[in-house]
């Protein structure tokens, strides 16, 4: 495997990271809640696809709307019933709450599915593109991820409700004064963010073997992406995701899988130390 | 340092936050041992100036000199150790600690001395009876008094008071005025900002006027009251 191939793999991986981080970015931006359970929502999306695939032979790609819809509902319920209650409290309350939820979901998932590694082997093999071997599943995942991320971006930019969400993110009190039901906006945003995480999970289920702990493994990557690209900046997060993806695959190529694992943490820690507002850090 | 030299000199100080110029080229000298006023419409930079003096924020340019010592880049606790203390516009007490604990925690001597001093100061502001009450549960007026007493624990030479008369009834205001005068008699310097014009004009011996981050006038209360620019700043917009 040449370095170029490794880099391309990294870019493709970055697409999925971008989708995963986009959901978290929205939640953090709109309601200032650092959702530590985001990884578990992704994990549940992965298991949804897995269950549909192994029990009902549903095409994993077609299961994405299902897993997204499920997590949309779960996300909205979580927000309305629990997160909303601590929105007015200092940030640490919601942090602890989502930390607890994350642990709880992990425990439940371990109970239901055990810690065994699972996978969804649907797509395999590689395609020859310009002399390079590109993994088919990664290409498809990348395409889907970018499409969904792009669609979300357009939704936020152009649609009425998207603008409502952005207004709430920028200034909740002013938005409320303009007649926006900010409670509903928060609920829907959390739902959409969770749905995006679930979609990312479905894609991940096709790309890697996984068990309930995958959420915990992926969460730091979302944070790394967001601090790299700047809180609230969609384009920044996309670029951050690509940087992370490539850094990981290159690190893995030159040293070991473990060093690759550490890239997200190193980025996260370094960025928080030196440039907490990220590379872009604008409000979008 | 000579007896009559200013205790604090603000030299061409500016502070920007992003694109906003909170303060632009302000130069003033706070005379020693007096009550000095700082007035101006909302947003004129008064609190920013307080933040700069106490080290909570750094100046973008310019210098702050306290008793011939450049304090522009010192951290807040060092500045307090040198002798500057302040209150905040919205009182910043330690809510889950009692009034007495609020006092004790900032004391610098041994336990006994701290306790004695805290008791005396609570007495000074008539808060002895509430000493075991949690700061969060005190009334608005009591909280302001506690914050005021607390800063006296460290025996500062320059005291910055941010709107000490806001929301305070006339009786309490008079008592507060008496206490301020007592402090001046003890040789302290007070820099006060407030919107209570009548009180300000009566207690301050000199007044600085800020508007949009710039110093537009300074002088005695009489001079200020008849200054056209000051009128314009408050009413002319």
């Amino acid at each position: 495997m040449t370095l170029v191939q490794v880099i391309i793999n990294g870019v493709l991986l970055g697409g999925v990271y971008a989708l995963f981080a986009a959901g978290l970015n929205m939640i953090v931006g709109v309601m200032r809640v650092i959702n530590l359970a985001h990884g578990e929502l992704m994990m549940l999306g992965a298991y949804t696809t897995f269950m549909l695939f192994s029990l009902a032979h549903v095409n994993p790609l077609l299961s994405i709307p299902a897993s997204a819809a499920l997590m949309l509902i779960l996300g909205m319920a979580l927000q309305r019933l629990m997160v909303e209650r601590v929105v007015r409290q200092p940030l640490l309350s919601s942090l602890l709450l989502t930390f607890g939820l994350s642990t709880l979901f992990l425990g439940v998932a371990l109970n239901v599915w055990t810690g065994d590694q699972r996978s969804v082997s649907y797509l395999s093999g590689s395609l020859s593109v310009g002399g390079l071997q590109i993994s088919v599943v990664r290409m498809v995942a990348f395409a889907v991820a970018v499409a969904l991320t792009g669609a979300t971006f357009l939704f936020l930019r152009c649609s009425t409700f998207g603008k409502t969400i952005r207004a709430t993110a920028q200034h909740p009190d002013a938005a409320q004064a303009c007649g926006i039901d900010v409670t509903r906006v928060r609920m829907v945003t959390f739902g959409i963010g969770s749905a995006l995480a679930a979609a990312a999970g479905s894609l991940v289920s096709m790309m890697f073997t996984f068990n309930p702990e995958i959420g915990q493994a992926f969460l730091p990557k979302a944070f790394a992406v967001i601090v790299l690209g700047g809180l609230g900046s969609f384009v920044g997060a996309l670029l951050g995701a690509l940087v992370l993806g490539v850094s990981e695959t290159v690190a893995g190529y030159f040293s070991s899988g473990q060093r690759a694992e550490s890239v997200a943490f190193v980025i996260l820690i370094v960025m928080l130390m030196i440039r907490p507002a990220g590379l872009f850090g604008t409000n979008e | 340092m000579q007896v009559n030299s200013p205790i604090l000199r603000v030299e061409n100080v500016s502070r920007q936050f992003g694109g906003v110029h909170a303060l632009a080229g302000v130069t003033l000298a706070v005379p020693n041992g007096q009550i000095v006023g700082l007035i101006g419409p909302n947003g004129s930079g008064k609190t920013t100036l307080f933040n700069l003096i106490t080290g909570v924020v750094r100046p973008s340019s310019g210098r702050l000199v306290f008793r011939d010592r450049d304090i522009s880049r010192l951290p807040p606790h060092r500045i307090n150790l040198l002798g500057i203390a302040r209150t905040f516009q919205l009182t910043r007490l330690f809510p889950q600690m009692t009034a007495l604990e609020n006092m004790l925690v900032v004391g610098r001597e041994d336990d006994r001395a701290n306790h004695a001093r805290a008791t005396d100061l609570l007495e000074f502001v008539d808060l002895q009876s509430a000493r075991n009450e949690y700061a969060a549960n005190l009334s608005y007026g009591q909280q302001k008094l506690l914050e005021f007493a607390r800063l006296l624990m460290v025996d500062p030479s320059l005291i910055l008071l941010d709107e000490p008369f806001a929301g305070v009834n006339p009786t309490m205001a008079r008592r507060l005025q008496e206490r301020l005068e007592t402090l001046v008699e003890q040789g302290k310097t007070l820099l006060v900002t407030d919107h209570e014009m009548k009180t300000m004009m009566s207690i301050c011996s000199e007044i600085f006027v800020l508007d949009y981050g710039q110093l537009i006038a300074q002088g005695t209360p009489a001079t200020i009251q008849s200054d056209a620019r000051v009128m314009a700043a408050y009413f002319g917009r």
Partner: protein
Amino acid sequence: MIDPPHAAPSVTEELSAVPESGSGSTAVARLPDNRALRAQQWNTLLPKTYVILLALTVIWIVVFPQVAPLYYVSLALVVLLTVVLGVSWNIISGYTGYISFGHAGFFGIGSYIGALLIAHNLTAWWLAAIVAGVGTALLALPMGALTLRLRGPYFAITMFGLSELARIIVSSWDSLTGGGAGLYLPFLEDRTSNFYAMGILAVVAISVAYLIATSGLGLKLMCIREDEVAAQTLGVNTTWYKIGAFALSAFFPGVAGAVYARQIGYIDPITVFGVIWSIRAVATTMFGGQGTIIGPILGGIVLTLASEWAWAENAFAYQIVFGGLIVLVVLFMPGGVMRLLELRGWIPRTRQL
């Protein structure tokens, strides 16, 4: 726009000057005067009560392993360990309000320092444990100097990141630590000495916590939690106090990790750096009551026994119990059991409890 993560005040913070208290609690219970008097009565009785309890605990520590079956001794060891984790976490997170999700890192680092010293026969095991604690505390100093500049949630997440990074470093450093394959320690016939060690550690930790909480030092730490900027403008060198508390909070899990390694006889990065140790510290302290002395002790005992019972039914009970508990505490009883008792007037609000 989200407030930037650094602890230095932002424009919005200063211009609005509304302090953000770390524990997220609402108004403090209003105590009528006779209760304030009762509080003072408690304050004179409590130190004597503590001394008695201390003596009883020491007796129990000595006697228990001699009379109880091995299973219960091991369980009691875990209880003591959890109490140590909670009490030490409380020193930084409960008192200063800097909530950390990386406590497991200290446990893991101490574990490896101790295990390496013991495995290579470099020193007596109990000395190895102390060195492990001191070593962890020393490492915590520069860590804290860097991370304690961050505000609330960012500090929490960064500490988690550092804990994971520590795990990865230990795991990669094959030559020293044996990497992912783990480390074996010499076989131990009689494990009672571990129980004594953990017992002494718990007693010391609780005593230190008591001394801090009831002294001026405790007030200084608490005022950091209450309003750090105001404290600074009143001459409190909050950086020093934060870092000091942080290093102290690292000592105890460091020692505990070393004793744990000796007890189990085998450690690997995933086990000793596992996030479950952080979760134990957080959940038990939050349940019992952050910022109190009894809180982490109560939480440690109750939760360890509860999850042990649940584990008998279900292998993955830990996460469900601890996770669910954190959720319940945040939503319905912030401040934990101690706060609940205080609001109902059963106990006075005092730093002695």
